[in-house]
């Protein structure tokens, strides 16, 4: 039953991720991406990462997708035809990559095949959010503070790109 759940999520993720590039209407692509985000959240639940699953829905499905839709509406793209001439080349390259990754998986170390997706019982005893908070605010303190700096840069970039007259007023 558990592997059935995994294969359901994995197949829907693959299908909707392909549809994102197959659809010619970018709004359909964005909505297909929304379905994919929800199924990735489901996959996180099967990995006992509940907090990550909720964040996936809140940030990706809630905020990032809105941003994507805004970009589609800003650019006013009705149908995307420019990149559909690449289909044959892309399929050929994809087939080569698929064969290569299969070969790498089978020729290399195959001990991972018998591994089971069981989380550390120590972290299972505590809550998911609690154990995440403990490592995030002690061991991974620097990346955490760095994240706020990156978000600051993102905000400055968004304001400069979209606001008229910021760069002109500085030079004059």
């Amino acid at each position, binding site marked *: 039953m558990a592997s059935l759940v995994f294969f359901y999520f994995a197949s829907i993720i693959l299908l909707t991720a392909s549809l994102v590039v197959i659809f010619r209407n970018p709004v359909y692509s964005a909505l297909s991406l929304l379905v994919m985000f929800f199924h990735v959240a489901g996959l996180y639940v099967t990995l006992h990462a509940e907090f990550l699953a909720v964040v996936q829905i809140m940030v990706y499905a809630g905020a990032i997708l809105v941003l994507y839709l805004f970009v589609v509406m800003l650019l*006013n793209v009705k149908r995307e035809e420019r990149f559909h001439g690449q289909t044959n080349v892309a399929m050929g390259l994809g087939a080569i990559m698929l064969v290569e990754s299969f070969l790498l998986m089978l020729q290399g170390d195959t001990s991972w095949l018998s591994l089971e997706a069981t989380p550390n019982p120590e972290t299972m005893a505590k809550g998911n959010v609690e154990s995440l908070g403990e490592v995030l*605010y002690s061991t991974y303190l620097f990346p955490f503070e760095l994240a706020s700096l990156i978000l600051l840069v993102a905000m400055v970039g968004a304001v400069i790109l979209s606001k008229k007259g910021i760069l002109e007023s500085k030079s004059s």
Partner: protein
Amino acid sequence: MVGLDLLAEYLSKYSPILIFIVLALGFGLVTLALSYLVQPKYPEAEKLTTYECGSEPFSDSRMPFPIRYYVIAMLFVIFDIEVIFLYPWAITFYDLGIIGLIEMLIFIGLFVVAYVYAWQKGALEWD
């Protein structure tokens, strides 16, 4: 296969959410199907046009949006991520002690800088 049994037991805790999703989908689909089945069908060209509060539709709904919406969406994403970081911090607040408070003050301080910048540059204005 002990791991898989554990996983199945764990996932069975999510069955209320599954029932909720099925009910929500079913409510939408059944309502639409029922209204489609019982409605009287007398289609006319006027009836089939897009309903725009009574006035006649004058253009396609896919028109370019002002770029101001993008700034608002970007600000929303950034502060959304900030709030996400507050959840695990709030849960482990007592264990982290004063260090945790200082960490979060630095983190929020950078966001205040971003907020002041956006405010000063007029990104929050609708001009």
